[in-house]
């Protein structure tokens, strides 16, 4: 019940058009968890746990919940916080979230962070001391884009990994992770919605296909097809890959069977089934939203290679990338309580160099709930219906105001 509530609430939230930064709600799985930060430091003795099949054991319930931005803030010069600095930063960002609704407004009713635990600080945070997810380039920021002049790829254009993309309904927070993914990603998604892609700078430019305006253009609420895909429960950045911390429901479960690793993502109930039995990629004309993933083991590490992304994932959600996008993820169990999640993003048509990043996943209590997002998406119907009613009222008012009446 909780779960359904949150599902519909989340979708409603997204549809009504609150700024993406607000979409930082919370996981149900998280409600039972402690909020103790824990740094995933490399222990002296490597983890040796194996599955019955003899491969490294990554199974369990996990979260990547954090405030760590994809790109280092422009005014940040350090690669790592101290524990004290991290605690202060988390407190600051949590407060920032709380400030985003005005008491006594509708927004505040829907997004009372304390009421529904829609707040990252209320679930376990990973305790990531990094000041950005990006580790390479060493400045913690995305490399320059192909064909862009140096300025275009600078901090200003990229939106600083924060909020304020200024796209109403940026909906896409949906992307929940979109919030963490920086202004670029969010701007791009907004663009797909047929809105001005105000926040994305260079990244937003190729964003037209994101919402697949099957509605034939027009305003965001003229038809469902003009609403961003996150609000429609089609895509979430928590699954992408790369798997970004979602604003809410940041719970994951990994189950391993012979020759296969499955990652269940609570947010929008995404499932990644990754074969590790040398099965080939599907033909390149098959283009899933989450890309086509195959995995293999390198020592203690699961290496997952993903390509052939759906063009709408590329343009609408993931930094405006091209059909050459390839994502390599590396999962390495550190200890009982954590694994390290590294990623390499390579798209020679988009960036002048591949870029790398990492974040920890830490254990949480289960279970992962069935997040029946689309099934409980009352927000879309209610919002569209409200717009139609408003239009009807406006038309009647206009008619009444005509001379001669």
């Amino acid at each position: 019940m909780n779960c359904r509530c949150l599902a519909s609430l989340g979708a409603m939230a997204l549809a009504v058009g609150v700024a993406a930064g607000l979409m930082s709600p919370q996981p149900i799985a998280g409600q039972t968890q402690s909020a103790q930060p824990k740094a995933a430091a490399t222990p002296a003795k490597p983890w040796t746990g194996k599955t019955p099949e003899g491969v490294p054991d990554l199974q369990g319930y996990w979260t990547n919940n954090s405030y760590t931005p994809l790109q280092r803030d422009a005014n940040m010069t350090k690669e790592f916080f101290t524990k004290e600095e991290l605690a202060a930063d988390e407190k600051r960002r949590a407060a920032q979230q709380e400030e985003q609704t005005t008491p006594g407004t509708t927004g505040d009713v829907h997004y009372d962070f304390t009421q529904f635990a829609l707040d990252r600080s209320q679930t376990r945070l990973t305790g990531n001391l990094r000041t950005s997810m990006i580790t390479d380039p060493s400045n913690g920021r995305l490399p320059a884009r192909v064909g862009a002049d140096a300025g275009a790829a600078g901090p200003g254009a990229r939106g600083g990994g924060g909020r304020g993309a200024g796209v109403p309904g940026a909906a896409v927070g949906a992307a929940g992770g979109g919030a963490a993914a920086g202004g670029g990603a969010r701007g791009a998604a907004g663009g797909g919605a047929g809105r001005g892609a105000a926040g994305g700078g260079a990244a937003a430019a190729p964003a037209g296909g994101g919402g697949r305006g099957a509605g034939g253009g027009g305003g965001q609420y003229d038809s469902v097809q003009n609403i961003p895909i996150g609000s429609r429960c089609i895509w979430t950045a928590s699954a992408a890959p790369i798997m970004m911390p979602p604003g809410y429901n940041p719970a994951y479960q990994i189950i391993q069977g012979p020759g296969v690793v499955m990652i269940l993502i609570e947010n929008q109930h995404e499932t990644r089934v990754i074969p590790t039995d040398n099965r080939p990629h599907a033909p390149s004309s098959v283009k899933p939203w989450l890309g086509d993933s195959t995995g293999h083991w390198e020592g203690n590490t699961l290496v997952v290679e993903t390509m052939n992304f759906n063009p709408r994932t590329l343009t609408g959600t993931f930094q405006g990338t091209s059909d050459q996008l390839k994502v390599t993820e590396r999962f390495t169990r550190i200890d009982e309580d954590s694994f390290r999640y590294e990623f390499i993003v390579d798209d020679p048509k988009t960036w002048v160099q591949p870029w790398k990043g990492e974040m920890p996943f830490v254990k949480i209590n289960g279970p992962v709930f069935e997040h029946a997002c689309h099934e409980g998406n009352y927000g879309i119907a209610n919002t569209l219906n409200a717009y139609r009613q408003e239009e009807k009222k406006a038309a009647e008012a206009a008619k009444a105001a005509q001379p001669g009446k």
Partner: protein
Amino acid sequence: MRSRLWGFAIPLVVATTCSVMLIEVVMHGQARGGAQPAGAQAAPAYRAPRTGDGKPNLSGIWQSMNEANWNIEAHSADFPRFLNMGAADAMPPGAGIVEGGPIPYLPAALQKRKENYDKRATREGDPEIRCYLPGVPRAMYQNMPFQIIQGTEFIAMAFQYAGALRTIYMKPTPGPADSWMGWSNGKWDGETLVIDTKDFNGLAWFDRVGNFASDKLHVVERITATGPDHLSYEATIEDPQTFSRPWKISFPLYRRKEANARLLEFKCVEFSEEVVYGHLRKVPLN
């Protein structure tokens, strides 16, 4: 063709009864991998390969091969739900997967099934048209593959349709909330995986003609490998609010044998949106 068949059949016919039986026994044994002496039991057991933890290995990509997703009961071919799709959407005939006659609906439930049928192709109708989660047992016989990911503590079933998933808890765990796919606890009974599922939300249908159950639905499934590439699936369906007695369904599951078989992505939300939200467009289509 016919003459070649006859050429093969005649020697068999003229052979002694004894040798015919011998041939059958040999062939039978080969089909089952030769592990069991045939004839001793009515249904000689197949012993599946084992996982690392010693359990029958049911891993793989599986699919039913029947018409139950159209109608789980025996049925003739019928008109399409969407007339403009013509024969492509016409219902193929099926012998059904329900054991022993019609589904024992209580009178009120039978009435509801009729109502479901009448609205099946509308926004209020079959959840499949809206890309909603399929529920259990429907997920097991939809016309798309699913994959069993077999761990020790958990066994997952990932379905191509709508990215649906069942997580089967092999350490019994109480369900925390009702849901589309229900809450599944599993255990091994020799060669058989037994799954007990309840805590449904009562919104799923069994098929495209409106067979259904309430949130009191309780499904007990038994899944057994009968060969390297076949599973036997049977389920007991119980719901005192909907049916006058428990009843059973059964059918085989077949392994997808293609060398490049993969569980692909069928994210159907966007395909369903005109049905679900089309009436709320500013400018109607057409």
